[in-house]
């Protein structure tokens, strides 16, 4: 009388083993330029992370969200998209944004809340995005991006625009009602979307096992009538292949896919968090060993596509890029006071015009 559904959450797609060896039949056979671009994307993300954490500790920026350990999930998935596709993101996917053309300089202007920030200094650090990159800026409330992304994808279907939408969210966010409504609508209207869950196994201090009793995220796709896929989130090729298939399916009119990228949040939740209050260092250490960048470097080296010199010169280049970006952003003055009152509406209403005047007087005093 029961549903008797069996599901093995331990099964997941892996293409590159931790030692860099590759499951040949699954290798997507990307060309060398593409393969190097993936590596650069991950290393840039890590490089920014390291500097971001330091800057915050030095008090030079107010807040930072690291994504160390999750680079493959971000970069591999974003790489599966075409330039007209949209990303609707959370706050922990800077690697996806860089890959789509958000410059590190722009990232740091956002971080600094500078006058050159595309978001006009209105959001906390790590809530980046750029329309030019088809990357909708993140907000803080977790999960809201999910039904919104469903709407974005639905609009494409209605307008017969071949674009695909990819939305990122965390394992914790799957507990929100918005996850449910967003996926349910997507299933009903079969919209061209990829739901990409970065299951990094923690939502601040809440481990995945206490987040839901389902054992995994992918199984939840069944509730909405489409496919759920689980991939090794530390294997960039697996992430890429799974996402590519989902994107192709979406574009072909076959509807949504839920991808669970199984990975680990190696760092703290944010610079405001001290994870030693709630989790074992040993667990973290085990996952540090599964570093997605190292694994992929092994793969490239085995293929003869990467050397110690390549590494050194790329790292130097990225360091320079990041240094320059930081310097520019931290030296920039904050946004003009007027910006406090613009963009509430396209045309400021009378109360905002009045309040701008008051604010000018207040500051002028």
């Amino acid at each position, binding site marked *: 009388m029961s549903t008797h559904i069996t599901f093995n959450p331990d099964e997941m797609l892996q293409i590159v083993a931790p030692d860099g060896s590759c499951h040949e039949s699954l290798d997507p056979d990307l060309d060398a330029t593409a393969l190097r671009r993936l590596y650069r994307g991950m290393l840039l993300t890590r490089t920014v992370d390291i500097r971001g954490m330091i800057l915050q500790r030095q008090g030079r920026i107010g807040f930072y969200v690291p994504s160390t350990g999750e680079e493959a999930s971000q970069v591999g998935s974003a790489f599966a998209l075409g330039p007209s596709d*949209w990303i*609707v993101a959370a706050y922990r996917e800077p690697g996806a944004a860089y890959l789509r053309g958000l410059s590190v300089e722009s990232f740091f202007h956002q971080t600094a809340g500078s006058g050159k*920030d*595309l*978001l*006009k200094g*209105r*959001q906390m650090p790590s*809530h980046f*995005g*750029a*329309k030019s990159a088809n990357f*909708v*800026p993140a*907000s803080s*409330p977790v999960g*809201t991006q*999910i*039904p*919104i*992304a*469903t*709407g*974005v*994808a*639905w*609009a*494409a279907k*209605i*307008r017969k*625009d071949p674009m695909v939408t990819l939305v990122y969210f965390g394992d914790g966010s799957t507990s929100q*009602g*918005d996850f449910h*409504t*967003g996926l*349910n*609508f997507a299933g*009903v*209207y079969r919209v061209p979307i990829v739901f990409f869950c970065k299951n990094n196994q923690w939502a601040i201090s809440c481990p995945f096992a206490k987040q839901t009793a389902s054992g995994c995220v992918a199984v939840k796709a069944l509730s909405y009538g489409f496919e759920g896929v689980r991939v090794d989130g530390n294997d960039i090729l697996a992430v890429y292949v799974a996402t590519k298939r989902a994107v192709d399916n979406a574009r072909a009119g076959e509807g949504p896919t839920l991808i669970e990228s199984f990975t680990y949040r190696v760092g703290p939740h944010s610079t405001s968090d001290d994870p030693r209050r709630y989790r074992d260092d040993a667990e973290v250490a085990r996952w540090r060993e599964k570093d997605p960048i190292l694994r992929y470097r092994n793969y490239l080296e085995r293929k003869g596509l990467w050397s110690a010199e390549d590494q050194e010169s790329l790292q130097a280049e990225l360091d320079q890029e990041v240094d320059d970006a930081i310097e520019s952003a931290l030296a920039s003055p904050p946004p003009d006071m007027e910006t406090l009152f*613009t*963009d*509430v*509406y*396209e045309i400021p*209403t*009378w*109360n905002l015009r009045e309040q701008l005047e008051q604010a000018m007087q207040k500051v002028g005093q």
Partner: protein
Amino acid sequence: MPELTLLQAISQALWEEMERDERVIILGEDVGRAGGVFVLTKGFQERFGEDRVFDTPLSEGGIIGASIGLALNGLLPVAEIQFVDFIYPGFDLIVNEMAKMRYRTGGQYSVPLVIRTPYGGGIRGGHYHSQSPEAYFAHTAGLKVVIPSNPYDAKGLLLSAIRDPDPVIFMEPKKIYRAVKGDVPEDDYAIPLGKAHVVREGKDVTLIGYGAMLHTCVESAETVAREGVSCDVIDLRTILPYDLNAILTSVEKTGRLIIVHEAPRTGGFGAEIAAEVAERAFLSLESPIIRVTGYDTPFPYALEDVYLPDARAVVKAIHQSMSF
């Protein structure tokens, strides 16, 4: 010029705008096949097809969330929430996303979305088919809030709302959906958002109302007119941004102000108007501003008539104001 009900005028505005602009789509519970629980979108799905008029799953969060995305990506959704009492599952998406999208993205993205929703009492609907929560939305920067009181305005305001580049909550006084009729031109006309309408001129007292209560104000004005008291009656039409100027102009003339709304008194939008007028027209006021409102209780069922402000209550307030 044909005479239409409020409901028909709204329906006509929607229909015409869908004819004119293919970016306009409609979504909501029961709006398609069944034509809406108030039969307001009857025939729309037949005319505009299933890819412009959508029956949605039963989720206001889904409707509002998806509508934000639809609006971000090139469409002009008009989402229906069956009763405003059921809008709250989408409240987070309204307050934290819809209202802030333009601001928080530095003006890169906007949400030209209209949420249409019947509100207010008078149909014996109890707690959950009678609420008037306009004050929640009016306290939310980034939103516009519109409430028509008659067919002519309803059409013109709805057309403005759909064409507005920012999100609009369009609240429809369902009590008078069919009760109020009026001439509605068949052509395209827009009534600007943010402008009140002085529906009756007088010199003694200013009455402010909107939605169904506007008619209560007019009725009250007519009653006291027989006693020789003349009222300026202002139909607010837009709650946010509201037309403070029109109100101040009137109060500077009359020196007396009464605000009428169905929503509970405490924290209702009447408080904002009263506070602003009391500050800016301090020296013009000849008597205290009076608010005639719903009580500070959930909306009742059996005692609905006691709950709702009526002309008797407004007339009493006028007398009070005049005799201060």
